[in-house]
């Protein structure tokens, strides 16, 4: 699978590029360079089909490998948007972990350890307080 390719002619809609990638014909994998015209929007990543001279058709995917430097088709998301998305994920993830810990506490009590149950539930409470603080930060970031 190739990552980089060279544009022979620019243009978001229809353009030609030359690239190299490995693919398999009749069970034999090989690499060769070819160029072709396609007319898809050049979002990253994208997948397209192309036809070779021997009649073989296949699909492959282009991706920028998260290399923003020199990118001709910048991503839709800013670094801050990515950080906010990560924060959002973490807050939700922590909430899921808190629930798992609470379930674990219940199992400890059912197994006869009431003291462990109380201690784990106290830890869950502390955990939720920390997550609440993160949630406030997230809310603040989302409204900036």
């Amino acid at each position, binding site marked *: *699978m190739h990552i980089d390719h060279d544009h022979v002619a620019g243009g978001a809609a229809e353009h030609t590029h030359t690239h190299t990638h490995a693919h398999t014909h009749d069970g034999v994998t*090989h*690499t060769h360079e070819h160029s072709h015209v396609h007319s898809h929007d050049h979002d990253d990543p994208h*997948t397209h089909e192309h036809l070779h001279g021997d009649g073989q058709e296949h699909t*492959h*995917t282009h991706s920028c490998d998260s290399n923003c430097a020199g990118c001709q088709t910048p*991503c839709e*998301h800013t670094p801050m948007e*990515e950080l906010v998305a990560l924060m959002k994920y973490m807050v939700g*993830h922590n909430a899921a972990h808190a629930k798992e810990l609470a379930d674990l506490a219940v199992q400890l009590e059912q197994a006869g350890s009431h003291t462990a149950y109380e201690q784990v539930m106290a830890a869950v409470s502390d955990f939720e307080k920390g997550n609440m603080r993160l949630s406030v930060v997230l809310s603040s970031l989302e409204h900036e």
Partner: protein
Amino acid sequence: MCLSTVYKNTLTPETVVMKNVMRIECKDGVVILTDLMERQMAIEGTLEMANLVDGVAIVKESEVA
């Protein structure tokens, strides 16, 4: 459950191919990675290892003949 960092062939800082990976699909000899922002990357090869505790996975890239 947690997001993972995916490496190509070996587990070194230089071989990180994608961070914050939330989904890994293996289909027709291609490993498709999707990160938190829904960006996708496809690598021809196989999923060699996934450590779900440490949040790391290694994709072994196919050798081109």
